[in-house]
């Protein structure tokens, strides 16, 4: 089993995100705000012109680093002595599934904005459907993983004994 230093990985991913933001700040298209007020209804805003390909793919990178950073933080919380006690492979699989969903949203968005008659799935445009229905469903796998693996990977019998020992020591000292 390989010991991984998740602290270092979170640090590197955070710097990566800062670099993406720095690049975004010099892209003229991103400007400072996006969208504009509706011509007829002042309380409603419109998005206006779709994002260009360059912005979309920079955003894709931002999204991928963000998702990977989330998994590094999850791993930091789950790891003991930098080992994931059976959670490593499931984390990687779920991370890949979420990254694939994210990529699907980005790719289908580009098709959506160029299609005059876009496909609706469950009443929403395809990229929005992926975002509303698939993204949370895949994220839910992390919740299920926590529930299923809790006694084996999060709080084992051995962990409980150590915790009880600490409580007993506290009782004795007080």
């Amino acid at each position: 089993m390989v010991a991984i230093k998740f602290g270092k990985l979170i640090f590197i991913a955070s710097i990566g995100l800062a670099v993406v933001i720095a690049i975004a700040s010099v892209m003229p298209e991103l400007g400072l705000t996006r969208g504009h007020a509706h011509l007829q209804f002042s309380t409603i805003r419109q998005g206006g012109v779709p994002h260009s390909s360059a912005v979309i793919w920079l955003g894709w990178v931002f999204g991928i680093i963000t998702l990977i950073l989330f998994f590094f933080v999850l791993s930091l919380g789950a790891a003991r002595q930098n080992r994931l006690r059976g959670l490593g492979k499931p984390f990687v699989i779920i991370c890949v599934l979420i990254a694939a969903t994210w990529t699907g949203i980005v790719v289908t968005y580009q098709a959506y904005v160029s299609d005059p008659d876009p496909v609706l799935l469950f009443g929403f445009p395809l990229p929005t459907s992926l975002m509303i229905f698939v993204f949370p469903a895949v994220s839910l796998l992390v919740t299920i993983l926590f529930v299923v693996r809790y006694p084996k990977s999060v709080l084992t019998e051995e962990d409980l004994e150590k915790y009880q020992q600490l409580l007993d020591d506290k009782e004795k000292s007080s």
Partner: protein
Amino acid sequence: MESFRDPIILSSVALYMLLCIAVGIWAMRRTTNTRDFFMAGRHLGIIVAGIAMFSSTMSGFGFVGGPGLVYALGASSLWILITVPFSFAICDFTVGKRLRMFAGVLDTISLPDIIAARYDSEATRGLSALAILLGVLGYLATQMLAMATVLQSILINSNFWPEASFVACIVISSSVLVFYCVTGGMLASVYTDLVQGSIMMVAGVLVFIAAFSAVDGGAAGISSIIMADDPESMGPWGTIGMFACLSWLFMFTLGTAGQPHIVSKAMMIEDIRSYRFMPLVTVTGYTITALLWVSIGLAMRALVLSGQHPELASADAAAPEFLQHYAHPILAGIVFAGLFAAIMSTSDAFLNIGAAALTHDIPKSLKRPVSNELHSARIGTIVIAVAAAAFALYSHYENARLIALLGVFGWGTFAAALVPTVAVGLNWKRGTANAACAAIVTSLILNFTIEVFDIPLPGGIHGGTVALLASLILYFGISYASKPPKIDSRVSAVMDI
């Protein structure tokens, strides 16, 4: 039935408030010390703790601001909702079990207690308590403002008290909140949260059905109307663009693990083994209540764009307008009670952690602990409520920007100050006290500076995201540049489990 709409709404809200008072009286008899007052005696079952956790997360912002955001910005704000399973999972894996263990082993009664023990530093305690206090004042003032606004509209519309002033409404609604928080402390908070969370879930499901029935063709009909007006608003980034949406995703998903009113619930459960089921309760509850956020916002946008409803006076009027015009009177009554429930369930948690910061943590960090903590905690709760109400009134009559300024000390500051310090720090022994102090101070300065000077960021990226990233980088950078810290043996032992 329609002619009884306003009396039904008024009765529902009155009944709900009476219920809160009754819970306060019940809890008062069971609150005998500070552990009861701040930690509900650490005897909570997982259902009660889980519902309290999700209902504290879904505040008035979710029930009023959420539909308003969807109405005004299209699909953009859904990025706050779609990773809720992830948000709670990050909380559960990083802080859930560990906070409960620290509470047991170190007998702590607040989050800054644990921070002080972890870093062996009273400065980290004082700074984290200060960040919490500032965030609490801002958040609480906005919640009180929302409560008074809704109550005033109900009283005036029902003709029960047509001249009800804003001051009277803030006094009435805050008094109920303060009553059960002062008498029953956290015990009253979590049991009112149980009632409040249940009402919110019922409201979420019923409104979802009503909203999609209000427009011909349901979800597809709504999408067609909105897309015909502006395809981008129904796309995945809505009207604010991809980078702004991603910044919300980052801040709200990772930031949940730094919200003291949410994570402190983990310290209150009785049996640590039952924590296994915490995410099932929180994710289910939050997802059901979020149905209201999405459905009302989309339905009202479509109704206004298609000319079936006049334009709203403001985006935040989306939920009240929908309930007044498209919901059955009984449903409207339930949802208005749910609205108060959403606001109060968050406010009571803030009052409690604010009182702990004011009467327990700040005095301890100054080496001036108070003698009768339970009595001081009750007084502290009243002081914070009065201060927040004063801010709310000043903002309403004199300076609307004040609340917004204090509000930024809410989610964004908690996230930037406490994610590195708590979510990372409790799992990473290399983190130092200086790094924690730097992260907290940076979060306060950056969040406040970006808001005060209205500094625009590229692509509409949220200021809280920049603050969170900066504090994370500083925390790791300073820690790596320093010698590894010495950690108390008991703290180290808990971190090893």
